[in-house]
């Protein structure tokens, strides 16, 4: 008998759910394993009562580590951590055996229980070799935030941060905030209030605005970053706990010659009575792109100022979410024409132009136009920000985010948040919420006071490293680099624990916490039914 003190907690789920089977035989199987002090069935471990039962079971058994046999560890590991802590154990002293997605959901009735046994056996053998993480510590957080941006989005984020008592530095590359011409305001009052936010933020006692300044590098860890700023008077350092990136795309209606669209009220005096607005925004990859709210608002404005003006909007779909729908109705009532087209239109001539397209409702069309406008979008800084903050770009050239839907605003680097926008649809309200959400994430991180660092990360054994640069090239999160000692090192705060470098390293110099070679081999042996 070994002296291991392992507990196995099996979450039991409802009889009505897919793949449910009798768990009692599984429990007695687990209880019979070497070093397992106790194996218990816990009814719905994610419920309040289930968590209490689990903590009680762990405390009474005297176990120092445990196996949770339940569903995917991806979604519930925070819960298991809190169970471990409540039972007085190390928060990572557990292993999850996924017997739901891994066995019960996918296998027929007889195979499900058998495979569950194997999965539990593997988890027990793995947790037997569990050790405390090499570094996981609580560090104090610096209560200030750097906001990197050029205009309204940055100002909105800064307003939210300063209002919560956080010191905020806005880093603006230009001579002042850019004018909010890329945004879509539904009325004049909204535009005015946006301008007011920009003025107020600049005067807020907790906000410092650094003009003519760019960020050259960002080192350190979440809660304690050091930015090197490059300003006219030379480089200087800035300490901050978190960073909010608020890059702004430039989104304007432009003529075919690249000039800005004239003000709607000037159209008549310029002799422009027939206007065609071409589809803008990103192409969908399967045909023509869509009509955008920017074009829609311009059309409404022009049509309401100038009766008799002829405006057509072309595109595959008309995108007008929420209250923008009413703008569309208004435009329609004032005679703006919408053509839903499948293929890109063609434009001939040099002004006046002829626009040709195929509208399924009316057939082939050829319309004359004095002015042809197109929605143009440029996102100038994604590449620059990516290299400065060591963030990967996605296939579209935008800053990549991890599971952006579950954790809005987060980038792969903890403590660095990004405001997103819908290209071609920079509606003020959406942007304000995006900035608010990113600011909210930053203040959640800092107002807690302290934060944990480390956990499931890779570590290089310097003596074995042959400096082949494989990990440096491969790491999708730019966490691996060659350190001062001339050997590969992995940045704890960047590493996401994906394990790519571990499997690549020809010298076997890299190990990843919780997935060490010894643990993996123990699991493999258990899978094959061999003992230790």
């Amino acid at each position, binding site marked *: 008998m070994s002296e291991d003190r392992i507990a196995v907690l099996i979450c039991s789920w409802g009889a*009505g759910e*897919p793949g449910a089977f009798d768990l009692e035989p599984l429990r007695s199987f687990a209880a019979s394993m070497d070093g397992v002090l106790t194996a218990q069935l816990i009814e719905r471990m*994610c*419920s*309040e009562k289930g968590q209490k039962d689990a903590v009680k079971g762990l405390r009474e058994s005297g176990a120092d580590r445990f196996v949770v046999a339940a569903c995917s560890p991806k*979604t519930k590991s*925070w*819960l298991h951590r*809190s169970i471990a802590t409540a039972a007085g154990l190390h928060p990572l002293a557990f292993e999850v055996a996924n017997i739901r997605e891994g066995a019960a959901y996918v296998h027929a009735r007889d195979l499900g229980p058998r495979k569950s046994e194997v999965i539990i056996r593997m988890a027990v053998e793995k947790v037997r070799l569990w050790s405390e993480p090499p570094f996981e510590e609580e560090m104090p957080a610096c209560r200030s935030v750097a906001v990197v941006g050029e205009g309204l989005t940055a100002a909105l984020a800064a307003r*939210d941060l300063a*209002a*919560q*008592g956080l010191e905020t530095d806005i880093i603006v590359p230009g001579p002042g905030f850019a004018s909010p011409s890329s945004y879509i305001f*539904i*009325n004049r*009052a*909204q535009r005015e*209030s*946006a301008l*007011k*936010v920009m003025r107020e933020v600049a005067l807020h006692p907790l906000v410092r605005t650094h003009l003519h300044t760019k960020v050259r590098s960002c080192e350190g860890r979440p809660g304690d970053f050091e930015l090197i700023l490059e300003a006219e008077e030379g480089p200087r350092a800035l300490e901050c706990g978190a960073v909010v990136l608020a890059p702004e795309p430039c989104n304007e209606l432009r003529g075919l010659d690249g000039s800005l669209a004239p003000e709607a009220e000037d159209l008549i005096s310029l002799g422009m009575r027939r206007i065609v607005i071409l589809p803008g925004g*990103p192409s*969908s*990859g*399967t*045909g023509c792109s869509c009509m955008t709210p920017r074009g829609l608002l311009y059309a409404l404005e022009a049509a309401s100022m100038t009766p008799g003006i002829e405006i057509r909007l072309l595109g595959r*779909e*008309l*995108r*007008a*979410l*929420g*209250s*923008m*729908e*009413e703008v569309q*109705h208004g435009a329609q009532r004032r005679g703006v024409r919408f053509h*839903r087209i499948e293929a890109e239109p063609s434009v001939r001539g040099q002004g006046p132009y002829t626009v040709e397209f195929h509208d*399924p*409702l009316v057939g082939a069309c050829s319309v004359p136009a004095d002015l042809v406008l197109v929605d143009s979008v440029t996102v100038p800084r994604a590449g620059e920000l990516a290299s400065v903050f060591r963030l990967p770009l996605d296939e*579209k050239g935008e800053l990549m985010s991890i599971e952006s*839907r*579950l954790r*809005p605003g987060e980038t792969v680097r903890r403590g660095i948040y990004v405001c997103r926008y*819908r290209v071609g*649809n920079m509606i003020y*309200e959406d942007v*304000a*919420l*995006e900035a*608010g*959400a990113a*600011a*909210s*994430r930053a*203040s*959640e*991180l800092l*107002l*807690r006071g302290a934060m944990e660092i480390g956990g499931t990360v890779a570590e290089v054994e310097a003596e074995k490293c042959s400096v082949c640069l494989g990990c440096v090239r491969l790491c999708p999160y730019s966490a691996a680099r060659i350190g001062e000692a001339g050997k590969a090192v992995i940045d704890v705060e960047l590493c996401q624990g994906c394990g790519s470098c571990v499997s690549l390293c020809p010298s076997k110099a890299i190990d990843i916490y919780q997935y060490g070679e010894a643990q993996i081999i123990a699991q493999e042996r258990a899978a094959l039914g061999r003992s230790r």
Partner: protein
Amino acid sequence: MKRVAVIGGGIAGLTASLSLRERGVTSVIIERGMSLGGLCGELGCKGDRTCVRCDACLAREKATEVSSCPEIESIKEAEVVSLTGAPGDFRVTVEGPGLNGGRRTVRAGAVICATGAEPFDAGLDRRLGHGEVQDVLTSMELERGMMSTGAINVPSTGTPPRSVAFIQCVGSRDERFHAPYCSGYCCKSSFKQAQAIRAKVPTCSLAFLFMDWRLYDPKENVRLWASGQEGVEMVRSRPSEVIVAEDGRPEVRFSSEGDADVRSRAFDLVVLALGLRPSSGAAQLARILGIETDGCGFMRSLTEDPCSSTRAGIFLAGSCRGPKDILESAKEGATAASRALAFLEVGE
């Protein structure tokens, strides 16, 4: 006083409470229903072998997290009956079966209203045959069916469908039902339901009857998906009615682009993609809280600040202020929490 009352335990309210907790602020969630999760808690996972990012799991996870937090109290089966005190020190009185018929008064420095929205009542649009023509389901009924049995079956036969029609914009973009707005979420939801149907019944043919596709995420490109699938049809049309076909199946009548004729086609299953309307208690709650509603009955937010109501100390999050999808609601929850916290900081 650093405590916030959150009205509504859907995704927006749950996110707001959790976000406040991260910043050391306690909160109490007042939920009308029996459990936390709200409308999105009624949705099922639409993933097959891979996640389609329908976000339906988000509410359940957050609800579980909330129930394990000592800093967040939740009062279920209770509704707000009065609000007294002043911004910075409100007294929220709640009443309902969850309090065994009794009342309770909660003190809070600020209030976050996150009461959500309700799906359109398909019975109001009688031409679409819901409740009269068999095998016409609402998108919510389809979700419940998928959730409870894990399978997709035609109600009248109990067998998998061979053909399904999705009718979009039911109770959205429709002035007859005082819903001139676009509900925004239904394009995504139908697309994901369609993917789930194809995953479970690969031979089933699909038809979408839509006005405009409004999917923004480039990864959710319904056209691209449809062009790579056999038997998926896109018809830009608003159907005129759903009637009973000769063989008893639902028959959709519609015209389409390119020809002026009225077409008629029977499907095994017709799904009505429901838009969102203001929650049934919204008007009364707005009166109790002393805040304004907009022309459609949603809570009115300030032009300059989408998460602030027309009264100081009362903040808005999620689809109580207009239709939202799950992720947008979660973002608003976090933003409203920031606003409430900033308000409490100034108050002290």
